[in-house]
């Protein structure tokens, strides 16, 4: 194998796994309670490097109230799987909740939190977004939502006002708005096709989520397992076909040369007013404001049909709190998670980060950048993006990009069916 032109990192990783395998019997139950002088040390891993400052303050406040616990923050999510392999994972974890995290849940990595008092303060609709991925032992609550991000179309309020365009509520209105911008010499939508994830979580998720019942589709697809084929009623081919032309229509409203622009280019250009709309989630907002502090932004869910009641917004549980099952510091970890879910902590975080609080008693959103999405979120008219249901081993974003460039929908969907079947085949055995 040494001659195999594996990347060096791959070799390191393999070496690490082997090393861990060798050390494992020695370490055995190597995780002893990490307490010194009666002070328990917790490791808290969170997935967003940009909010380290906020959590440092939260930890400081928590430690002042709980002098017997010390919390260390780790924002390198990449350490998580190696931690599991070493049998030394962090005690408390926040992760974006999607297929990969759901897989940890199904493998029983996390402890049950259903008896935590804070669990009952969470909006059951939002808790459902987590539990719909499957629960360990069929009933456990492995993760509690901390932050819900809603993504739609970010638009420049100034350009909309100057052109006399109001927020579209149907697909036809949306197309008409794009045509109007185009006629006025304004690029309707800024495209960043070079970063293929922006196509996946943007136009693919929006169009698919607006046209189909995504959760229902993937539930049926998963139930079918490895028996899926392109002509089955549950397949991508049989369900996604009618939605695809709308993706190409969205792509055609993008600027010339979108294929050579990436996410960073897009943020800079959109903040400078080079387009009226941008298919991005709330994570782009702070970047846009950083590029132009006077930019006036709003968001609306992309209407995909001509019935305004159908319009839904793409959401993802951007942070969900979990405690690793084998932590020796369970009591301290539970106290920390309860503190994080205190309304003052969780609501403040979401207010500051243009996200939605998962609590039942959450205050109404006032940030004008996302107020346009609030009604959909409040009424539960939302879906988790189709891309989040895919196992990471499927290079889905590459397929989406190939479709947008090559415009061959038939090939795209049958490739998805094949990939899905192959993953099902090899994980089901």
């Amino acid at each position, binding site marked *: 194998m040494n001659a195999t032109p594996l990347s060096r990192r791959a070799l390191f990783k393999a070496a690490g*796994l082997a090393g861990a395998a060798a050390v494992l019997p020695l370490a055995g139950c190597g995780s002893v309670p990490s307490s010194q002088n009666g002070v328990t040390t917790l490791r808290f891993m969170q997935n967003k490097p940009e909010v380290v400052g906020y959590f440092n303050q939260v930890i400081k406040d928590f430690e002042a109230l709980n002098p017997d616990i010390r919390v260390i923050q780790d924002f390198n999510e990449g350490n998580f799987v190696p931690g599991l392999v070493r049998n030394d994972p962090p005690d408390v974890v926040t992760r974006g909740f999607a297929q990969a995290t759901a897989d940890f849940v199904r493998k029983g990595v996390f402890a049950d939190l259903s008896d935590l008092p804070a669990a009952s303060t969470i909006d059951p609709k939002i808790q459902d977004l987590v539990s719909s991925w499957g629960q360990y032992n069929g009933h456990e609550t492995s993760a509690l939502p901390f932050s819900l991000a809603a993504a739609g179309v970010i638009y420049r309020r100034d350009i909309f006002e100057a052109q006399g365009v109001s927020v579209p509520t149907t697909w036809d209105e949306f197309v008409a708005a794009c045509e109007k911008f185009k006629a006025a010499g304004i690029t309707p939508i800024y495209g960043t096709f070079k970063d*293929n994830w922006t196509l996946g979580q943007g136009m693919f998720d929006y169009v698919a989520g607006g046209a189909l019942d995504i959760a229902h589709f993937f539930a049926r697809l998963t139930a079918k397992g490895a028996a899926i084929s392109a002509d089955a009623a549950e397949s991508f081919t049989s369900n996604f076909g009618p939605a695809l032309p709308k993706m190409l229509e969205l792509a055609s409203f993008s600027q010339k040369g979108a*294929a050579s622009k990436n996410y960073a280019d897009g943020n800079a250009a959109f903040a400078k007013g080079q387009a009226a709309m941008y298919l991005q989630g709330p994570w782009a907002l702070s970047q846009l404001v950083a590029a132009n502090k006077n930019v006036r932004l709003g968001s609306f869910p992309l209407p995909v049909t001509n019935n305004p009641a159908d319009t839904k917004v793409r959401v993802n549980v951007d942070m969900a709190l979990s405690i690793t099952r084998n932590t020796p510091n369970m009591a301290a970890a539970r106290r920390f998670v309860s503190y994080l879910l205190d309304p003052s902590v969780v609501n403040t975080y979401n207010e500051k980060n243009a996200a939605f609080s998962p609590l039942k008693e959450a205050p109404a959103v006032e940030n004008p950048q996302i107020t346009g999405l609030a009604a959909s979120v409040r009424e539960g008219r939302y879906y988790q993006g189709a891309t989040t249901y895919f196992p990471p081993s499927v290079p889905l974003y*590459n397929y989406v990009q190939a*479709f947008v460039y090559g415009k061959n929908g038939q090939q795209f969907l049958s490739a998805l069916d094949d990939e899905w079947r192959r993953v099902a085949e090899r994980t089901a055995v």
Partner: protein
Amino acid sequence: MTTTSEMAQASQPAASTVPSKATKRAVRSKNKIDPTYYWMVVPVLALFAFFITLPALVGVFFSLTNYAGYGDWKFIGLSNYVNIFRDPAILQSYIFTFVFALTTTVVVNVVALAIALGLNAKIKWRTGIRTVFFIPMVLSALVVSFVFNYLFSNTLPVLAERFGVTPLATSILANENLAWLAIVLVTVWQAAPGATIIYLAGLQSVPAEVYEAADLDGAGSFRQFLSLTLPLILGYLIINVILGFKGFLGTYEIIVGLTGGGPGMATQSVAMRIFSGFTGGDYSYQMANAVIYFLITLLISVIQLRLIQRRGVSL
């Protein structure tokens, strides 16, 4: 007679053992290996075995399971291997990698030989120019590819538009049919200096007399190159081709920096697919892919070593 025969009989065992002992000792003392060599080899061997061979064997072991890198797993026999042969995306990555490696090897060697001939000629500021040509070799491939990424995506389209070269007005990295040429170009830019050094060494080993003789015979410079230079540096050419081809089969960083495997699936190399197994929860499947790829590269290496031995060249 009897005495001699008796003596011979008596002395036979002695005679046969004593000299054999002596020869053994002589052989041993002649072949006695200085323990220092063991001190040098054994630790390296142990480190190599522990950090490379053992993990590789662990990888082979897990390729027979459905292990995701964590959590529960069980043996599934050879089905990972069977599934790889039925996976068109994997097969496509093999085709891409081999076409890429072949093309790049040819281009690198043509370019490097041309540069080496130029740098070996009597030109002004030869040392300075040589240094300039070797700079790409000391730069990290990732840095080089990010710089080229910027050039292809931003600078080149602007220039092309200004001068009316419409085919280049959009980034070639965004073109599924041309993106691989960009990767070949950057790889050649990065790899040619290394090959040039080897060719320069080869060219300097050719004695000047043969050219003088050829001049007297009235051979032109092209004829000299074809009939003299090329046969005399053939060993260096073979080394360059073999080392280059093996290296390009493992191409990774430059693709990551330029296209990330896109656009679409156009530039996914085998090494990229294998590495995706670590992040994608697809560890055992891609481990099986790695084993297959190892066997293929092993086969190629054996064939190449045979070729070398036939040519009488040693690496």
